[in-house]
């Protein structure tokens, strides 16, 4: 969204309430702070750069082709699912089942391809349609029963996990593709991160440049008000759930082809929580109405760099969880506090 440099610097016309409203805080005061509030991804961007520089100088192996492949493969699915969650969080909802979609729908694609003998492209399309239906169920349950999505998607998470364990008998499968199709779908080292870039960019455009994106903000920002203005708030929510499920499923398929293994025992919920964490530390509020797709992408980079960097340093992976926990708490606190400070500073004096 193109914003002017600031309220502070703009010419103050005559207000509705003479004398003209003063904007508290003089010109130029706290420009950096203002940037942090208006561009919510700015803070996490600084953190990402700092971490990147730190591991570059602290370890010799961080800057290397092989490590970058590892790093991007770790963060790509988090970025994609995180961007989907950022949209849902902005609509004041959440999808706890996104990680399970990430694990389950590759099985569907594999079954259609290996057992039913469909071409891989068609198998993927059908599995994505199935994911869309699953997202629609999440959305419809939430808006029709008027339940918090925390509850509905917690239910569908376990239900889908159950279906996966029953149909697979908990047995692993090998999902190995070859040729150009296989390269595009994950065999090429960089294909996963390229897909992630493409999907996150697509969601960015959808969120910031289309009516649908604006209606997501309106729905999460003031659901009743948006409905009174004629916004189809329920439809907006259902479609956002659909989107989140589809991108999660697709990220899962690419990831499964890359590692060539389908494991029903994989923990999808951990992937989901990483994704929500990426969205939240990227600057998306849990209360709705404020979100950033780019922030989720940068959040995923931060998680990836931390995880990978600590690994290279030989630090126990346990530290990663600890650092992640503290980072989420700090991000939430900063989100709330920065806004509070900003509102005090820039609120037009009444």
């Amino acid at each position: 969204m193109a914003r002017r440099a600031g309220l502070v610097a703009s010419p103050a016309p005559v207000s509705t309430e003479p004398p003209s409203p003063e904007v508290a805080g003089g010109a130029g005061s706290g420009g950096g702070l203002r940037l942090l509030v208006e561009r919510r991804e700015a803070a996490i961007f600084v953190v990402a750069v700092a971490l990147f520089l730190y591991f570059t100088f602290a370890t010799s192996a961080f800057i290397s082709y092989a490590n970058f492949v590892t790093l991007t493969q770790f963060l790509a699915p988090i970025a994609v699912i995180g961007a989907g969650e950022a949209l849902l969080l902005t609509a004041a909802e959440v999808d706890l089942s996104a990680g399970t979609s990430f694990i389950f729908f590759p099985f569907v694609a594999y079954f259609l391809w290996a057992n039913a003998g469909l071409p891989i492209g068609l198998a993927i399309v059908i599995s994505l349609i199935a994911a869309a239906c699953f997202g629609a169920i999440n959305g419809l349950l939430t808006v029709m029963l008027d339940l918090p999505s925390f509850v509905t998607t917690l239910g569908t998470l376990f239900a889908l996990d159950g279906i996966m364990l029953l149909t697979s008998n908990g047995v692993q499968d090998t999902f190995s593709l070859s040729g150009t199709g296989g390269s595009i779908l994950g065999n090429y080292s960089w294909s996963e991160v390229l897909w992630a870039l493409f999907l996150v960019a697509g969601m960015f455009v959808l969120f910031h440049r289309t009516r649908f994106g604006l209606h997501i903000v309106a729905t999460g920002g003031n659901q009743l008000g948006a409905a009174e203005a004629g916004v189809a708030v329920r439809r907006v929510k259902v479609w956002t759930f659909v989107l989140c499920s589809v991108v999660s499923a697709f990220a899962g398929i690419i990831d499964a082809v890359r590692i060539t293994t389908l494991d029903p025992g994989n923990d999808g919920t951990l992937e989901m929580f990483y994704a929500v964490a990426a969205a939240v530390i990227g600057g998306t509020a849990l209360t709705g109405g404020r979100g950033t797709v780019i922030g989720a992408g940068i959040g995923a980079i931060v998680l990836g760099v931390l995880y990978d960097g600590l690994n290279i340093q030989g630090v126990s992976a346990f530290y990663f969880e600890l650092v992640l926990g503290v980072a989420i708490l700090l991000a939430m606190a900063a989100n709330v506090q920065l806004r509070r400070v900003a509102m005090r500073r820039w609120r037009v004096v009444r």
Partner: protein
Amino acid sequence: MSDVASTPSEPDGDRSNEILRIEHIRKSFGAVVALRDINLHLNRGEVLGLVGDNGTGKSTLVKVLSGFHRPDAGRILIEGTEVTLHSVRDARRQGIETVYQDLALIPQMSIYHNLFLNREMTFGGPVRMLSNRKMRRLAAEYLADIRVSIPDIDATVEQLSGGQRQAIAVARATRSEVKILLLDEPLAAMGAKESSLIIDLIRDLSARGVSLVIIDHNYTHLFELCDRLNVIEQGQITLDTAVRDTSLEELTAYMVTEYRKQIMAGRPDASS
């Protein structure tokens, strides 16, 4: 001043000047009857005030007319033609715009996105993109037109004062072709200066030929702004009077008498 509980609106006479007529509108929420049997009319260019205690159905009536609630029964006629208002979009297509009591603004969104909410301008295809620059410019121009000044068109609504927010809500409702404007407590919780801005806006609209329905608890404001007043009690219009045929004292006395009657009758909603 005449009691019209039995004959809710003027007997069949010349209706050519009517822009809006509603007949026998009924709306319940579960067991709660919000609108029992509403009959009223609005003449072209007229300012009609709706008076009534909290919980008598005023806001429900506004939401039926704005397309937000569907009535259970009854007819709505616009310029003599029966219409169905099944959505806010339907109502807008008929030229009915609403400023809700809660303003229906999105605090986190910019002023111009709020002004264009659900009527966004787009370009291109197959995925249509928002014309943010155009909306921004048109919003600034329109606000300047109706002499609403805001510090910055890019500011979010949460950064505005109460009066400024009210002005944005009115501006959103009047930016496009509006025939009938519904204002639900447009002056609630507002200081004298901010009220005078909104009152000026309402007068300008009336002068432009917009027909208005205003809900307000402040009778002084209503006498200042309205041509005609309707009293609504328990989901029915019980009094229809031209402002020139009554006085502030008379109306106040009427309302107090009615209130006492309800208490004596032991109506459960009399105290609400």
